[in-house]
């Protein structure tokens, strides 16, 4: 067992957000978390990241507490630093986390990730000179560069148009297949979850609990129109809708 989320509870004042969330993710596994807006997905991810303290429960990796230095975060907004070029943005995480490396080595690592993400030639572009999809990829490179044990992604493609989004999903899978990371990926989109994940964690509306953990047993690359794919989608939709109707 690699990543264990055990009975995590969190309230903001009187607002109960997470009500005992538990699930497990294997090493190198791609897990998606779905749930309706406001149910606490970002909160859960921030707790895993150590940015927010849980009221109760724990997050373990190999049986030990998961620390902020073990994770990397990809934000919903790309959150690139506007005064840094693409390359310098990727180097930022290395400057913070891998202080022992010299500048030259950091630059090499950053370049190799940008190349992996198909951004060769754009190293010296500033964020405002890049497209939305490119900016997201820089954000992903910045997270991957520090070689985290767990990669946390909070709706990284939510702001992209459908076409770019599909292309980014493919590229993310390509990168993931090359560097098997444990990924926790939050999304609104059931389609995206079924397309990407080995395992989908379905959360109830607030206060969130795990409704079901669904293994997606489909070969990659997945065909969105295949009956099996549609079947998984329907199952998740029914679970999500069933709960929101019963509120």
């Amino acid at each position: 067992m690699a990543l264990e989320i055990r009975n995590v509870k969190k309230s903001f004042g009187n607002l109960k957000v997470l009500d005992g969330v538990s699930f497990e993710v294997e090493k190198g596994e791609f897990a998606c978390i779905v749930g309706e807006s406001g149910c606490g997905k970002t909160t859960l991810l921030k707790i895993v990241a150590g940015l927010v303290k849980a009221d109760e429960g724990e997050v373990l990796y190999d049986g030990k507490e998961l620390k902020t230095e073990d994770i990397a975060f990809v934000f919903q907004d790309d959150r690139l630093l506007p005064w840094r070029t693409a390359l310098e943005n990727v180097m930022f995480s290395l400057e913070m986390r891998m202080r022992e490396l010299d500048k030259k080595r950091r630059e090499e690592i950053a370049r190799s990730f940008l190349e992996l993400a198909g951004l060769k030639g754009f190293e010296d572009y500033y964020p405002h000179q890049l497209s939305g999809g490119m900016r997201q990829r820089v954000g992903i490179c910045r997270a991957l560069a520090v070689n985290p044990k767990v990669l946390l992604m909070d709706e990284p493609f939510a702001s992209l148009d459908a076409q770019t989004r599909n292309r980014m999903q493919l590229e993310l899978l390509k990168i993931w297949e090359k560097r098997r990371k444990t990924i926790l990926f939050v999304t609104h989109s059931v389609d995206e979850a079924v397309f990407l994940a080995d395992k989908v964690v379905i959360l109830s509306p607030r206060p969130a609990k795990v409704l079901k953990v669904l293994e997606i047993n489909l070969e990659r690359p997945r065909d969105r129109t295949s009956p099996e794919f549609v079947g998984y989608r329907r199952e998740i939709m029914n679970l999500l809708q069933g709960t929101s109707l019963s509120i």
Partner: protein
Amino acid sequence: MKQKIYSALLFVFLWYLLYFLNVLPAFHVVVVTFLMLVVKAEPVLGKTLLQHAASSLLRVLAGAIVAFSISIPLGILMWFSRIYNLLHPAIEVLRPIPPLAWIPLSYILFASFPNPTVFAQIFIVAVGAFFPSFVTISDYVRGVPQEFIELAKVFGAKSFDLLTKIVLPYSLPGIITGVRVGLGVGWMSIIAAEMIATSGSGLGYFILVMYEVGGRMPEIIAGMAMIGLIGYSMNTLLFKLEERFPWRLKSGT
């Protein structure tokens, strides 16, 4: 460009209107006086307009350097809430005191110095430049988006990293705005200070003397024009610099 030409034509037209009403000397007379004063020393004080401008500018520069070497680092430190809470009330009380109100005090402070008037003038400029630049910079610094701080923390930033790698670069355009508004007020302060704490040179002193020796209107206006031109150039230059930062916040003037 066209707008600017119309604006200039309107200006000159209104000027001549005032000339025919016997309020102002003719525009062309002032222009000629200005050009003459730029190249030729004016006999009463024995200096050209450029020499007067240079001494005013030097004093502004000295005062501004003093002001900015305090307001920039201190403004950035205002990012820490503890320092903000400590300094903000004091600054808010001192800020409304006009720079010129510091003159009597500065005379006493610098009485034992070799050239107290010049020191007093520089001090007045420093006071004038400090407050607007400090407030502009600290406002900008206080506005660093929490998202960037969170990002840095996720990758393990320490307080010092936050200051040098997030707060400082984010605030760079704000620092330039601060320098711009500070220089603007500093420039106004030196002209005023030169008229009260006189010291033999400077544009403020020049127009005052031109008044005292018999109300020489063309010379006075030429001096004022020089003051305006220099203030305008400093402001425009720094504004151009500010505009080069794509992430800058919209600043008013």
